[in-house]
């Protein structure tokens, strides 16, 4: 496989995941689409320089992270339930409008509870539970050991549980 084939395969595999990663950080479908495209441009730039990429998935997530950080530096994204409902319940046919709205509220409240965590910790929890990445993948993305990530997640879960019990 040449560079282009590797890259295009990576796009097919990762486009949705990267889009999701960005969407749950900017909470705007259109902006998320634009930033997803930008992420893949940046990844290709790296390919074009003929540089070695150890772990393409982790590398793409890292790139997406940098792009998101840059784009939301000036304004804090606000979560809109309607927007969330539209995006998350988009292709779901077997639930009613009310159920869909309730789900979106629940998701929003979970994401909202991450605010009590430090920014870096919240990022790890999002990678684990929103993006559904494995411990190993998270370790690669945040450049840490699997062990420390799993310990950290364990502690953060306790913390969140305590918070939910209080409210």
């Amino acid at each position: 496989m040449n560079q282009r084939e590797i890259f295009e395969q990576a796009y097919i595999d990762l486009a949705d995941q990267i889009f999701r990663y960005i969407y749950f950080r900017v909470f705007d479908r259109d902006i998320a689409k634009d930033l997803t495209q930008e992420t893949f441009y940046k990844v290709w730039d790296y390919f074009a320089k003929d540089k070695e990429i150890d772990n393409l998935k982790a590398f793409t997530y890292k790139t997406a992270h940098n792009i998101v950080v840059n784009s939301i530096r000036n304004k804090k994204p606000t979560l809109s339930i309607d927007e969330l409902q539209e995006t998350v319940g988009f292709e779901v046919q077997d639930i009613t409008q009310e159920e869909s709205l309730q789900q979106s509220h629940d998701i929003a409240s979970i994401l909202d509870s991450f605010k009590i965590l430090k920014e870096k910790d919240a990022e790890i929890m999002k990678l684990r539970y929103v993006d559904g990445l494995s411990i190993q993948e998270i370790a690669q993305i945040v450049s840490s050991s699997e062990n420390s990530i799993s310990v950290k997640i364990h502690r953060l879960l306790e913390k969140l549980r305590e918070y939910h019990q209080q409210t």
Partner: protein
Amino acid sequence: MKPNLENLNEYTSKASLTTGEKLNMFENIRAYSNANPVKSKYTLLFKHSFAYASMFALFIGTSATSIAAEDSLPGEILYPIKVNFNENIIKSLSVTKAQKAKVNVSLVDKRMEELTEMIVKEKDSPEKIDIIAAKLEDHKEELKEYIDNIESSDSEENAQAAEIYAELESVVDIHLDILEEIAENEDDVNVDTVDQEDEIVPQDTPITELPIISTSSENTISDEDIATSSMKFEVQATMTLSDTQEPELKAEITQKVPVKIQNIEAEEEVNAMLSGEEDAVFEISNFSEKLKPIITSAKMKSAEKYQATSTIKRPDIRKRVIETAEKELDITIEKTESFEIKDLFR
């Protein structure tokens, strides 16, 4: 089922791009990757290797030629490259008017060096000297333009104008000294060569042209002695010959005398200038005048190698001059084919 942290991903994974959005984005990304192809470290090196190689060869070739051309003299194949290519590059590299003027001074220096080299190597001919004279005139015109520009601008550049004058003056003076020395040495070596003084009165030359040529002696310091001695001779000859009342010879001498009188006047002027009595400011126009005699004399010397014409070589006149001199000065002169007037005073 209610969303919680454990099953959150089941819900969030529903957030995805539509197939249309995905395809559309794929097209964009492919277009982007086509526009920015992979630049391999190796392809980068070899892709344009032919272009680089030919550029390199051209560069080497051009620079070799222009370096070789630097030593060329007028009449040689590479000389036009030197004056038209190399020197235009040097000119175009200078930015300010003062720099451009200085470049022209250095080119004057070069031209005069070439003139000297040509004479020393005996590669001179009137045509080649003409080439140099024309070039010198070009440099002078250009220099004049820049100097005028500089002088009409602010005071800071005015100071530079004086500097350029000084530079030009020293360049011209040095080369004139060298050329005169060469002329003197040549005269010593080639006794057969007709003295420069003799050339002053070429046969059938209209008198109006004479002062121009005579200035060559006023500027040539080394020839001063010769000039003085020949003048003494002329004055004496005039006095003696006028007694003899020979009409033909008298006519010849009277033709010579005004020239010499002018010569004396000119010499006085030069002396006055040297002693600082007159304002000896170096001017661009002076520059031309200063160069004129040396170029004229060099040209004439050169021309002489091809065809020697001189009044003194006319057998009848020479015979009479010698006879009169022998009679008046009470000496014997060897009757060689040509002789030096200064020989009379040995």
